[in-house]
């Protein structure tokens, strides 16, 4: 019994799991360089990630604030957007956690779950307000990592993808490569900034700031395997309760593997997530192949021209 109690209430981290306890610390000097294109850190540890269960997100934005406080992300005081309670609009260089607020007319399955239904016009359906905290997906095959020419982007020993701000030269190749629009250059310094899955905290055996701040455990942090198992259990529970809309997004390695995946109540595009994200760099091989054919044809043509010219 005692081993299943959370270390930090609301954290979802249990006493039994020491999987992310780091023994010893590496300094930049002792840390081996990661070869370009390598997906995983040489000394692999269990891959860590986020499971964001949007069905219990109360939209408090504590994750946004905790992230910014811990990582020294600047605030951007703008105007009211008029988009429900969302005034940070999207993920970006200065917003590494972003809570989306979606107001929609739709039957609320939660009410069916409890045998309660609000009467109302059939046509409109009932109102529901979806909230979801978005974050960098720390992809299994991260296109940003593949295109980064400086090695600033790297795969950590926790399987996460991190930008090293002292190496990033601001080339911006990673920005269009990301299928989720996560990577973004900060106007003030031109460099790219994004969620590190609190790399520094993980190195100290702490969970990321957002997960710790989340009061309802909507954001859960842990070894990805365990999180996926947990998420499947939760999904099953919801389906049994009649919440047919519930689905996982990014939990299936065969479709598109994400280190940060989600439990949603509607189609991903409703939450501003691409329904079918693509690893653009997967096409590199075939692109290079086509280029080689073209180059060969060119050489042949030139040779033919010379041959002709000799006549």
């Amino acid at each position: 019994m005692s081993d299943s109690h959370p270390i930090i209430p609301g954290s979802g981290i249990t006493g039994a799991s020491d999987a992310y306890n780091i023994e010893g610390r590496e300094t930049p000097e002792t840390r081996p360089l990661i070869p370009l294109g390598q997906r995983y850190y040489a000394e692999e540890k269990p891959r860590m990630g986020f499971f964001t269960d949007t069905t219990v997100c109360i939209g408090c934005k504590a994750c946004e604030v905790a992230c910014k406080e811990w990582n020294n992300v600047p605030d951007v005081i703008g105007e009211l957007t008029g988009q429900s309670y969302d005034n940070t609009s999207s993920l970006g260089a200065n917003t590494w956690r972003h809570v989306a607020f979606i107001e929609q007319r739709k039957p609320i399955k939660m009410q069916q779950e409890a045998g309660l239904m609000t009467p109302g016009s059939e046509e409109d359906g009932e109102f529901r307000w979806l909230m979801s905290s978005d974050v960098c997906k720390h992809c299994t095959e991260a296109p940003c990592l593949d295109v980064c020419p400086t090695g600033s982007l790297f795969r950590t020993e926790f399987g996460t993808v991190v930008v090293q701000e002292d190496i990033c030269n601001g080339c911006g190749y990673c920005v269009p490569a990301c299928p989720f629009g996560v990577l973004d250059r900060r106007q003030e310094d031109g460099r790219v900034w994004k969620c590190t899955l609190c790399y520094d905290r993980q190195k100290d055996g702490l969970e990321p700031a957002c997960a710790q701040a989340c009061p309802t455990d909507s954001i859960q942090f842990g070894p990805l395997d365990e999180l996926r198992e947990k998420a499947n259990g939760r999904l099953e529970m919801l389906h049994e309760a009649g919440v047919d809309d519930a689905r996982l997004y990014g939990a299936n390695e065969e479709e598109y593997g994400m280190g940060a995946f989600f439990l949603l109540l509607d189609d991903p595009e409703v939450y501003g997530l691409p329904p079918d994200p693509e690893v653009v760099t997967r096409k590199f091989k075939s692109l290079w192949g086509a280029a080689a054919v073209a180059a060969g044809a060119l050489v042949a043509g030139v040779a033919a021209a010379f041959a002709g010219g000799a006549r």
Partner: protein
Amino acid sequence: MGSNMAENHPVGFQWVVEARLRGAKIIHVDPRFTRTSAMSNLHVPLRAGTDIAFLGGIVNYILENDRYFRDYVVHYTNAPVIVSEEYADTEDLDGLFSGYDPESRSYDASTWQYVGTTVSGAAGQREMGGITGEQAHYAQAGELGHGGEPPEMDRTLEHPRCVFQILKKHYSRYTPEMVEEICGTPKELFLQVAEALCENSGREKTSAFCYAVGWTQHTVGVQYIRTAAIIQLLLGNIGRPGGGILALRGHASIQGSTDIPTLYNILPGYLPMPHAHQHQNLEMYVERNSAKSGYWGNMKAYMVSLLKAYWGGAATAENDFCFDYLPRLTGDHSIYPALMGMIDGWCKGFFVMGENPAVGAANGKLQRLALANLDWLIVRDFSEIESASFWYDSPEIETGELKTEEIGTEVFFMPAAAHTEKNGSFTNTQRLLQWHFRAVEPQGDCRSELWFMYHLGRKVREKLANSTDPKDRAILDLNWDYPIEEESEFEEPDAEAVLREIGGWDENNEPLPSYLPIKADGSTTCGCWIYAGVYADEVNQAARKKPYWEQGGNWVAPEWAWAWPMNRRIIYNRASADPEGRPWSERKKYIWWDEEQGQWTGYDVPDISPTKRPDYEPEAGAVAEDAIRGDKPFIMQADGRGWIFVPAGLTDGPLPTHYEPHESPFENALYGQQSNPVREVYPRPENPYNPSDGDPGARVFPYVFTTYRLTEHHTAGGMTRTVGHLSELQPEMFCEVSPELAKERGLENDGWATIITSRTAIEARVLVTDRVVPMKVQGRVVHQVGLPYHWGSKGIVTGDSANDLLGLTLDPNVHIGEYKAATCDIRPGRRPRGPALVRLVEDYRRRAESHNGGG
């Protein structure tokens, strides 16, 4: 209900989410669809200010369908008690109770008493002297008949004057149809709530109500909570695990600030403040305030020990323990009369600590005019808030109604330390005291409240040291010798020493283990009797942080922090067992009588003398808790019963009754009496009211508005509008309107709107949202406007203050303002600037013939 828990108590709301995951049904009844509604199984909209009609409808549903918990109701509530023949109900008097005096706009409560005896309330207007003076006598007798029972009862609940039948009649017209008519809530939806509540109550199950200022901030605020109390008593949901009525507080330790009060009319531990004329000495005070039976029978011991804490060695039996040093009441000395006194010039100085009245209080203009007419003003806060800067940047400076050079107020700004910069305790809604330790030293001149008050007192005492004026003895004789922290660079007093004094000690200076040994002879000292034991064994019990999984499987986790009284986690928990002392059910067992051991046992500290048998009957002449039977859980009441009907203690009636808010676009569908007849009004030029339904100008202000908070900001914004990471999340003042109202008034999402009342006009950005629904009430559609109130002139993000729109009108029991329901007009575009703003509001007032109260 009356709470937006997910937004305003997100940390506590994690347990609601967890309960839902375990299968609990969450129902949110609120005018708006909020983040709480989004997390609930069911959202039920209602018109702001009509909750008593809704809850009264539930009472009626329970009674009509025989859904009440009969054994609980008969044995543990005053349902069987026969009420005085002179009592007349609102059903008889068209919305008034017997004893109403239109001249003084007050009630003589004597006709509300039980037949054959008089009892005094466990709280509230105990001695009733504040109303007529004459009634002070009625609290004296308070004796029960044979065997600790009221003299006349009918356990069959059929006597026409028993509380049960009076209740039935009182709510007989609160039908589902009437609920729909008044609240605008569809009947089917209301019935779902009533049924869900009944289904989830009884021996095997319990239901809880959570409320916040959405219930309290009305002219009938106390009666809102009373209605919930009636429901919970009828359903057997008090004193049992999973039951209760939970007051969600607006700040950390608001509970603590009533236990150790910052209120004018109570002393620590809910001891009443003495009155000037009725309480000439300690004996008279005790006699007039305490009942002979029930826990308040020990009032003298608690009072004497408090006086010992205040005046230590100077307090002796010979000098009545310095009882005469205590200030006396001569009337209502709450903040509101004081504000009027500032405007009228007799109140010259003002301390503002932990509040920001220029933004956070109703009728902001009146608040600022008051501040501008002081000699001196002390503001303690993290930064220069609007209450300190009003003299150069208030809206009245912009309109020309105030001129900086003409304001004589000398403002002293004292920077305050944050809770992370000081030691202290928070008392939460569950009465749990949790100690917090200083994490960092305060910067610059920032200091704790404790430092400020201690050194202020020290300096005042130094100045008076040579005084021979007898009035200064009260200050010079004070116990004012708190130790200073050894390491402190600026003489910070030791907060734990203060806690130790609150927890109390005996004649050997040993900390009290609980309130039980507190004596009336001056041998014990205790700063707050209900907190006695918080320093037991010389240990700061509030600082205990032992997690529940290290507490031997007791899910109540008694070793996490400390709860008053006596570390009891659920009060009145005797009610978790049946009259014979057996748990009502295995599933809900909590404390029970162990016949073998001859004592009460269970998961919590029993809220009854541990060896008092369930069949105990008091002998004639027994006093205090000994006068309460063994089968009566509500030991603070003179009769040990939960009060469905309140014979004493309330100024506005023994049963909650639906009255329209002071400003309402509708007439009272139930009675000729429109609003609470004894609500407090301030008819003054600075405080004009919008006309209500029935007045010719009512249609000038056709919409209902309500004010509230957002997760992203805290109250009047002093703590959050100064923080970039919070300001960016809600950068501008806005209003929330339905698409229907937007269409009716030409409002555009993301555009601007001006909201107008008789007080002023403010501007706000517009959010058009389905989260606000128009309600159909009395055949008409009424639109509601939602207004967060966080903005003001200072900070990173600024904006107009919603509270400027409200008039001052109060609940008569606790003097809380009606912030949650009033009327307004709304139109597109920004408000006029400068004197043009004043002209706009004057124009509205003229058209509406706004008046100064009445009704």
